[in-house]
C-alpha cells in the first residue's frame, strides 16, 4: 500500500496504490482521517487500487462521513471497473461523487 498526498490549491489529492484490505485499511485511515476531518476537499485517485475489501470500503465510507460532518468532501477518481462494480452492488458507490480521472476532478472542483 502506497499513499501519496499532495495539495493542489484548495484540493488535497491522494494517490493510492495497492490493495486496501483489513491489513492496510488502518494505515489508510490513520493517514487520511485527519485530512478528511479538517474540512478540505479530498480527491482520492483510485486508479492504482487493485482491490478493495470490505474493510477497505468501510475506510472510504468513514472518510466520507468524517468529511461531510464538517465542510469537507471526498471525490473518487479512476475507479477500475471491478471496484466500481463492487461498490455499486453493495450500495457504497452512491455515497461518493466520481470522476473518471484525477485531472477531471481537479478541473471540475477548481
Amino acid at each position, binding site marked *: 500500500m502506497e499513499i501519496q498526498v499532495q495539495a493542489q490549491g484548495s484540493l488535497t489529492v491522494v494517490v493510492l496504490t495497492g490493495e486496501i484490505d*483489513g*491489513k492496510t485499511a488502518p494505515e489508510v485511515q490513520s493517514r487520511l482521517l485527519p485530512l478528511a476531518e479538517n474540512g478540505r476537499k479530498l480527491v482520492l485517485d483510485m486508479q492504482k487500487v487493485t482491490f478493495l475489501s*470490505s*474493510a477497505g470500503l468501510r475506510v472510504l465510507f468513514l472518510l466520507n462521513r468524517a468529511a461531510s460532518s464538517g465542510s469537507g468532501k471526498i471525490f473518487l477518481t479512476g475507479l477500475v471497473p471491478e471496484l466500481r462494480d463492487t461498490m455499486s452492488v453493495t*450500495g457504497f458507490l452512491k455515497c461518493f461523487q466520481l470522476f473518471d480521472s484525477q485531472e477531471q476532478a481537479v478541473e471540475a472542483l477548481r
Partner: protein
Amino acid sequence: MPDTSSRIDYYPTHEYQGFHLRPGHPYPFGATILSGGVNFSVFSSHATSCTLVLFDKGEPLPRVEIPFPDSFRIGNVWCMVVFDLDCESVEYGYRMDGPFEPAEGHRFDPTKILLDPYAKTVSGREIWGQDPDWQQPFPHRGRLVFEDFDWEDDRPLERPMEELVIYEMHVRSFTRHPSALVKHPGTFAGLLEKIPYLKELGINCIEMMPVYEFDEFENSRKSPTTGETLYNYWGYSTVGFFSPKAGYAATGRWGMQVDELKNVVKEIHKAGIEVILDVVFNHTAEGNEHGPTISFRGLDNKTYYMLTPEGYYFNFSGCGNTLNCNHPIVRSIVLDCLRYWAAEFHIDGFRFDLAAILGRDPWGAPLPNPPLLESLAFDPVLAKCKLIAEAWDAGGLYQVGTFPAYGRWAEWNGKYRDDVRRFVKGDPGLAGALATRLQGSPDLYGWNGRGPTASINFLTCHDGFTLLDLFSYNEKHNEKNGEENRDGANDNHSWNCGREGATEDPPVQALRRQMIKTALSILLTSRGVPMLWMGDEMGRTQEGNNNAYCLDDPTNWLDWNLTEQNRDLLRFVQLLLRHRKAHPLLRSKKHPCFHRGGFEEYPEISFHGQAPWQPDWSEESRRLACLWSGRDRQDAPAFLYFAVNAHWEGAWFALPRIPRCWHVAINTGMPAPEDIFAPGEEVLLSDQSGVFLSPRSAMFIIGK
C-alpha cells in the same frame, strides 16, 4: 466530548500461544466484533470441553486452536474475547468434545471442526456451483461481519397485510437465464437490476426462496438421463441460519454478501416492495445418521434434533432429520435468528417451510400451545413482521385453518389452491367452494376471528406446476430429476387442454392462455393475500416438471424472452394487479357480510348465477358470479361484478340491477387487448341487462 471508547473490558487478561485473550460475554451468542477484539460465544448442554479453531482465510490448516480455559465458561456457554484479529481474514470453527453414545443421543466427535450456528457469514461455497474440495476437513467456515450498513431512513415497510400482493421467486432462477441481460446473473445484484420490472408488474412484496447459506452440493449427483449435475438447487436445507448464501452474491467471493443483500433490500424497499424470506427451520443440512457433521450434530445432537428413544432421527421433514423446535434452546436460536434478520436486514416477513413441525413437541406430538409460535407472534422485534406458515409437514400434520395463530400467523392456503384449480378445470360440485374462497375462506378463518389476511391465496408456487403447465399437462414429467418420475406430487388438479405438453396447435395455445387469465382473475379478486409464482405472469413453463428442486438449468431459470413472446399475458397481469389496487373492496381485512355493508340496501357481497340473485349451487354448476358492493377509493359507491364460467359451453349472465352503469374491465374470453382494460378505461356495456361469457372465461364488470 467524553471519550467512552477506551473501555477497559477490552484489555486482555490472558494469553495463549501469542494470542491475547480475556473471558468473554456469553451473549450475544456467536462472534461479535468489539473494539479491539472479537467475542466468541458458543454453547452446548452436553459437551465436556470446547476449542476455538482459527484459520486464515482459505488455508487448509488452522492458524491456532485455542482451548477455552475453564474459567471462561459460564453455565454451558464458552465465551472468550480474542484480541487483534484481522476480522476480514479470519475464519473460525469449534471443536467440541463429549460422549459419542448414539443410543443416548450424543454424537460428539472432536476430530470434526464445527460451524458456529450463529455464524453471520459462511465461506466454502462462495462461488455457485464451483466444485468443492471434497477432502476439505472444514468445508463450511464461520466468518465475521461488520454490522454497520448505512440504512439511511429505511426500515421494514409495514404494509398492511391486506394490501400485499406477493411474488414468490428464486434468487438464482430469477436472473440466471442469459436473456435476463444483467451484469451478475443469478445473484442478489442481478435482482437489483430487475426492480423496475417488479415495480411495473405491480406486486409489492417478494418472497425469496431460501437465501440462508446452504450447500448446493448436498447430495449432488449426475442425472442418469441427461448427465447434467443435479444440485440441492432450491436450497431447502440450511447450513447457516444467520448467513446469506454467499453463492447468491456477486461479491460473495469477497465475503460481502451481507452488504450486497442489505443493499438489495434497501433498494427494493425504495420501490415500495417488501421482502419476505422463506425460512427452513424444520430440518438442517446434516441429514440423518449417514449425513455430514457440520454444526448441530457435533455441538449438541440431543438438544437440536428430535430423536427416537433409540437415538435415531425422527423424520417429520422428509429430509432425514427434524429440528427440535420446541426445545427451549432451539426456540431461542430461532427467535435470535429471526430478530437478527428483521433488525439487521430489515426483512419484512418470513414464510416458514413445513411450519407444522414448529408446533410439535420434542417427541413429535403436536402441542396445543406451542411456545415457539407464541414467542414469535408476540416478540417485540418481530411485531410488524409478516409470519406465514406452510401449515403442514411431511409427518402428516395438516393445519390449514387450525395453525396456532395468536392473531398473527397467516397460512399458505392449500385449500384455496385446490378448490380454485378444480373449479377452473371444470370439476363439478365446486360452486360453493369457490364462493367461500372468493370471500377469503371464512370456513377456515372466520370462526376463529382470523379474517382473510390469514389466507395466502395462491394457485401455484415453487412446489408443483407453473400456471402454464397446470393447463398443459395432465401428468407430471419429472424424469430429469433422476428419480424415474417418482418424486413430486401426483394430485395436481391440472388439465392439459387436450394435448400433453407444448404444442403449436393455436386453439390449444389460446385456450391455455385463456385458462391462465381466468384463473388469475379469480386469484386477484379474492379477499385474502394473493401470491404469484415467478414467471407465471409471462407464461413460464417447466415442461411438466412439478418438482424441479435439483435442476440448475432453464427448467428453473426464468426466460426473459417470454416478456416479449407473451407480452399480452404480462400486460393482462399488470392491469389485473392495477384493478385489485383500484378496489379496496377486494382487499378488506374482514370477511364480507351477506346482509348489509354494501352501498345502500346492497349487501357487501351477493352471489348470482345466470339469473341475478339466483346462484346455482347444484352439483353440476360450473358457473358463479358475485357482486361486491360498498365504498371504493374516494368513498365512491362501488359495484364490482365478477362472473366465472368454468363450463365448456358459453352462457348468458343476466346482470343484477344497480344504480350505476356497468362497464367491462376484464373479459378473459376475448383476445388481447380486449381481454382487459386499464382502470379508468373500462368500456361501457352496450347491453346493460347482461353479458355472454365464453366457455372457461371470467368477466369483471364495474358499475360507475
